[in-house]
């Protein structure tokens, strides 16, 4: 029947993407999950051996460092980016004439590749010729800023570059949020004689809770996936002082030839991402249906 065929067209159009989604996303996740339960080394093996890879993973000091780094980097990156982004948004919200230009300046790093960002900051923070040398040449001979090559501090160097790249984006999100607050509420508060800072802290910021949440989700997601920035800035070093789960996984997969470890570390990464994202997406989808 003609109408029957017509009714199938939308499904036919969606079908290739759906099949791709099933194979390349969900099928592949399944494959990785499976391999993470095997003794695969250089080549994948498909006999299940329980959680042996995960045991090995969690007893590996290098993975320990990577998870610790993720925690330090993630917390600092998210907190500083949020605070800085919020501060910038509030400052920009004071009816500044050059707002457009400033916004452009604060946000442009988001258009850059993490590799470019890493390259630039690596040069700026390089102790021999960068900031350290510059400050010393001003007469502060004992000034030291060697974070990129200092195993204890290198992770903080990555935080600086990460914040530089992402805080402008948080600013843009918050600024849009500030602008979407109902103007009449603010007018009413002004008429009531409530000081400006109170209007922000008591009225505007609480109404932006959903934006805080999405900013958090995006930043957390960025932090967990961070790979290029570390590669470009420190290469995971010195040693593996700045390894993150993403670089650990890559090293296992492509330089160490340990597929089992690569797969299990990828699964842990996905677990962390989903622990953060799934409740959020679930509530979003549900809110939409109501």
């Amino acid at each position, binding site marked *: 029947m003609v109408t029957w065929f017509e009714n199938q*067209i939308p499904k036919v159009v969606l079908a290739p993407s759906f099949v791709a*989604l099933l194979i390349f*996303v969900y099928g592949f996740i399944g494959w990785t999950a499976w391999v993470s339960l095997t003794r695969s080394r250089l080549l994948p093996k498909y006999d299940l051996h329980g959680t042996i890879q995960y045991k090995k993973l969690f007893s590996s000091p290098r993975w320990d460092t990577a998870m610790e780094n993720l925690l330090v980097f993630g917390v600092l990156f998210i907190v500083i980016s949020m605070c800085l982004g919020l501060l910038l948004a509030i400052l*920009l919200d004071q009816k500044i004439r050059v707002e457009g230009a400033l916004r452009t300046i604060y946000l442009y790093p988001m258009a850059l590749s993490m*590799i470019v960002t890493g390259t630039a900051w690596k040069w700026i923070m390089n102790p021999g010729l960068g900031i350290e040398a*510059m400050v010393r040449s001003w007469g502060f001979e004992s000034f030291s800023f060697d974070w990129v090559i200092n195993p204890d501090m290198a992770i903080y160097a990555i935080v600086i570059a990460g914040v530089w790249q992402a805080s402008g984006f948080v600013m843009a999100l918050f600024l849009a949020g500030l602008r979407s607050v109902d103007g009449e509420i603010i007018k009413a508060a002004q008429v009531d004689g409530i000081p400006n800072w109170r209007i922000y802290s008591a009225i505007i910021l609480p109404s932006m809770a959903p*934006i805080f949440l999405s900013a958090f989700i995006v930043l957390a997601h960025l932090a967990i*996936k961070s*790979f290029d920035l570390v590669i470009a800035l420190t290469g995971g070093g010195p040693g593996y002082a700045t390894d993150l789960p993403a670089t650990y996984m890559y090293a296992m997969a492509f330089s160490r030839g340990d*597929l089992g470890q690569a797969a299990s570390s990828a699964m842990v990464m996905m677990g962390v991402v989903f622990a953060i994202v799934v409740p959020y997406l679930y509530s979003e989808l549900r809110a939409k249906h109501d």
Partner: protein
Amino acid sequence: MTDFAPMSPAATQNRNSDVQKLALRWLLFAMLGLFALFYLMPLFVMVTTSLKSLEEIRTGSLIAFPRELTFEAWRTAWSGACTGIKCEGLQPYFWNSVLIAVPAVLLSTGLGAANGYVIAQWNFRGANLIFSLMLFGCFIPFQVVLLPMAMMLGKMGLAGTIPGLILTHVIYGLGFTTLFFRNFYVTIPADLVKAAKVDGAGFFRIFWSIFLPLSLPIIVVTVIWQFTQIWNDFLFGVSFSQAGTQPVTVALNNIVNSTTGVKEYNVDMAAAIIAALPTLLVYVVAGKYFIRGLTAGSVKG
């Protein structure tokens, strides 16, 4: 005349609060200016360093303007710098990135538009489930598909090729492009499709004559988003390419981290700017759409 009138306490207070206001205003501008410097400094350092000679870099200060402008570093970065064993500069890899990004952006945008149109306007049983699956797919860390994708590309004979990278970017970009178009089309009243159906138009006719002409803003947003994502990608590039098919980000990283010879910081910076130029250009020309994509990508639904 007010100048000679004795000042009332209220007037003094006014004067005081005016001064306070002015001071606050200056403080505000000072802070905004300092932050602007913080964000601009790396770009400034990159540009000035790329225009200095190595000699000047070694002797001069990080933030000094070049005493003598030289474009030597740019020439080297473009056509002479070494990425590992080869020394042909960034140029071939820049074109690789173009060859990857252009088809991948077009394909993923086109498919995203069709998917979004179906999901938003031709809702059938299960369409919402598919959309939810796609949405979750946007969030997976790509590490979890890296190994099987490498094997799949090998099986398809696409390992280390540009078509392989195009395919990868199209597949893993589909979630976001579909999301963009779906969220745009869902705001268009369903009556429009009904009216067109009564007028005798079918699925493709309605898309082509009614929806596509409406879609310019969201097409721009999607194209910019996808272009930025694909151009700036490193993970897929470094995992699925081989010598000769690497995108510009991978080549840049290789130049910067190549251990042979003298470290040429000016060349590194020139190369970094070259690699960043296309996306920066897009940002400067169409910043509004760039921001819209960023916020649309994060504020779902």
